[in-house]
């Protein structure tokens, strides 16, 4: 016999989770995987989608706190996300279909921990922290330590993700997320890349900070090492972008599967990386590139 409880307070949810109930938010991973026969539906499930305190987006001076049950549809259109943390909006706008985006949540995406998750690279480059709560209390885990393998996270079984906290970017910064798409909806990331680029406000467009992360080319989303060293002090020109692509290709450890060979993934992750860096740097100059980048520049552009 399966049991579904609908939590009405956070305390109730935490108590049930401590008893072994598994949280469900949108159910687009949990329920769909069970129906597809990939993993059985847990016997005890607690729905967290009605907890108002998990569905807020709060700006503070230091940054943004995004509640765990905020949907992708909201992420892609929320002004504070689109203005300050654009890569995350780029990613949310690519998730599945309108239906998937309306019910799928950022908390579910983070906790499901797929190497192909679209919000992963943006959260890495934006230096986010995952806010975890249990009956024992609250703690914050930097995303760089959070995903430990496919479907695996640093959270404890009794912990609920309540929010994602993202610090503000320095001025003259921009971010972007780009994904390889074989079609324009219902896609899964074959490869993707997120980037943050900060420019010298007084300089002539020289880079003062940069980060880059890659999607679906390793057991988890990965940060690219050495990207800041490679770019700081340079202009984002063809030679800088070629270096970005090479760095990304070198650090990727893609597999060959039905969706692509490792050769093709290694090549295209470089292409995505350079496009993400280019879009982020253009946004850093104040240029407005509509969300998602995939629909604004390159092959996916809507005409």
């Amino acid at each position: 016999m399966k049991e579904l409880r609908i939590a009405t307070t956070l305390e109730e949810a935490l108590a049930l989770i401590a008893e072994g109930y598994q949280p469900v938010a949108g159910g687009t991973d949990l329920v769909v995987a069970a129906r597809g026969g990939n993993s059985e539906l847990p016997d005890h499930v607690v729905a967290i989608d009605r907890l108002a305190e998990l569905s807020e987006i709060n700006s503070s001076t230091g940054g943004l706190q995004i509640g765990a049950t905020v949907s992708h549809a909201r992420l892609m259109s929320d002004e504070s996300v689109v203005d300050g943390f654009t890569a995350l909006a780029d990613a949310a706008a690519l998730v599945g279909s309108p239906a998937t985006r309306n019910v799928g949540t950022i908390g579910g995406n983070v906790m499901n921990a797929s190497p192909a998750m679209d919000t992963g690279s943006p959260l890495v480059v934006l230096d986010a922290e995952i806010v975890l709560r249990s009956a024992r209390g609250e703690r914050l885990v930097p995303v760089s330590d959070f995903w430990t393998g496919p479907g695996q996270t640093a959270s404890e079984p009794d912990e609920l993700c309540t929010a994602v906290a993202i610090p503000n970017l320095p001025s003259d910064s921009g971010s972007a997320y780009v994904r390889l798409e074989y079609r324009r909806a219902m896609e899964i990331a074959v490869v993707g890349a997120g980037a943050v680029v900060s420019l010298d406000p007084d300089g002539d467009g020289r880079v003062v900070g940069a980060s880059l992360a890659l999607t679906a080319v390793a057991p988890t989303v990965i940060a690219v090492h050495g990207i800041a060293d490679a770019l700081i002090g340079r202009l984002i020109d063809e030679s800088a972008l070629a270096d970005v692509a090479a760095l990304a290709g070198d650090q990727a450890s893609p597999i060959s599967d039905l969706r692509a060979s490792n050769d093709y993934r290694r090549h295209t992750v470089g292409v995505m990386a350079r496009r993400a860096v280019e879009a982020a740097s253009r946004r850093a100059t104040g240029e407005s590139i509509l969300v998602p980048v995939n629909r604004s520049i390159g092959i996916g552009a809507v005409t």
Partner: protein
Amino acid sequence: MTIAETPRFVRADGPDKVTGSGRYTADMQLAGMLAAKFKFAEVAHARIVRLDISAARQIPGVLAVLTDDDVPDVRYSAGLADRTLFARDVVRYEGEVVAAVAATTKEAAQAAVDAIVVEYEPLPIVDDLEAATADGAVLVHPEWESYSASPGIPRDGNVASHSSVVRGDVVRGLSEADIVVTSRYVADGSHAAPIEPRAVVAQWEGDKVTIWSSTQVPFAARDGVCHTLGLPTNRVRVIVPHMGGGFGGKCGFHYEAHVAALARAARRPVKLVFTRREEFIAPDRRRESMIVDLTTGVKSDGTIVARRGHALLDNGAYTADSSFFPQLAVMHLAGPYVIPNVEIGAELVYTNHQPSGSVRAPTAPQATWARESHTDEVAAALGMDPVEFRLLNAVETGTVGPSGQTYDEIGLTDCIRKAVAASETAGPLADNEAVGVAVGWWPSIPAPSGAYVKIDGDGAGQIVTGAQECGTGSVMTLRQLAADELGMDPEEFQIVHQDTAVAPYDTGATGSQTLFNNGRAVIAAAGQIAEQLRELAADRLEASSADIVLSDGAAHVAGSPDRNVSIAKLARTASYCELLIGHGSGPPPSAPEISGATCAGDAGMAAWVAPQFSCHAARIRIDRDTGVVRVIRVDAVHDSGTIINPTGALGQVEGGVVMGIGQAISEGTVYGTDGRQRNPALLEYKLQTAADAPEIHTQFVEIFTPDAGPRGAKGIAEAPNVPTAAAIANAVTKLIGRPVSHLPMTPERVWEATR
């Protein structure tokens, strides 16, 4: 009437479908109904050394477990009876049914399936078309000499059927050519992938069974049940509730007999609903993979003098309706061109893959993709514009085509000019854009078909037809034909259809044939009532029946609109004396004669009745860094004769184009070395989505075609699926400088070709 003047006629089943009030087979509930589940082989080729169902029978709630031992010893399949309902001794593909279970719940049925013990001795897997036709190949059906087959099927080796067209002297033609171009193309198999996985419900009452099935061809389904279970046709009734698409995948006789046999054994109604995975691996209907070799010789002025061609088609493990595929493939490798010397052959090859069968325009998208890509290669070798090259060689009214058929009035060159002109209106091409052009052709299929029409005492009309609606809307269009014949409004007619016990025979939603043949039947049936109405009105209006005109819901005397009586009044009169009942069928159009071709394995497909022609111009954009191709716009121009229902015809073209895009760039079955499908799921088998659909601009070259369908109409449902992939391919080649010779042209394959 031109297309602009024809009244827009919207299908009647739309509201039901979009509001969710429509009921599909899987929605059915009957008292005491059981759930069915199948035990599939799950291996591609093996001998069954042990099959033990005893544990499955013990599972609580299980009321029937059937295997080959429990059904009559009958082989079936049109043309070549190579199948049995349940695996016998050997399984030949992963989706073969080994056993079937009926139980009170789905879970119990699944538990019983899991409890069935099957031990296999593996057999070598036949999955390479060339190896399968080589000497000494492992045979998929070693003892097939004992199967019954149509004459002309040799039952030897792994070739399930073959066909060729030979005209003129190819060796001489090629030797006299100035330029000879040779190409090889390989197409992966693909799927119909309807949104509704199939479902079957069966219920016995005494010695009669009623079967509700999501089939495109209820009469063929009925006949399959009768044949395999040994029943006369009047004891099997097949009814089709709403259908969620078919695209050919639901043609043929599939699982109706399995479910009927389960219901009989369990003495309860039984329902089978496939999962998406089952829908991918099991039915004997998927688009065949193909290897194509083409050699064409041309004069330096651009005229084609000779073509040699050969295709290998993957039949899979059993023959569904595919025996005639080689002949269709041959016609598509030849193409709608004047070629004096041809020698083209095709072979349908047994493998341990899922059986192939009629998916929308069988053989055509792949073979046309190969031929039209080759056509652009030939034009490039000549240094000639590919459109000019096509116009120079295309068949025209009065010319003799590659199979020796002389064409009546046809509009192919018009289609080409109009498609190219329309695509040029879309503005200049960016440097990552190109337009590719391809032509296609497709036969109309004459077949017997019947309908009744009645008008009751209140003047309301009813059409009772054997025709089947699979989502194309063509059955709905029958109302328009009956109404026109009787001077009534289409809205005054209801349709009773897709019930084999109630209506006369029709082939079903297959071969673009519904309106083409059943339209004739409905017009004939309505014509009988029109005759009755004219007699009644003549009496009433004191005129000669020859002078009575039926229009606007009334009968009036020609030239005197004031002397009239409403059809409703006449209907009331008739309801007290001789009822208004019409029945119709009418003789199907006959096949034209052909001359000068010799045909081995002639399946009657070398002479095409009312052939349809088309030209698509596809504008694409390429991402050179990744190989991703997007189709921006397709200009589709079709000669399908008179267009009876423009709204419906546009829908067919748009759907066909989008399906064609899928086949071009994203849809393909990937097989593992174990002979099993690796992508039997919608995430990994990539259909195009609404978000991917390009702008589609459609035009019809309307030519009244004699010896065709009603009012000079040809078919329309399959033709739009024929040239799209080819047009896209030719655009890709323009951008990357060489053809991508493997279908689908996935981003990775395009990228590989650019390296």
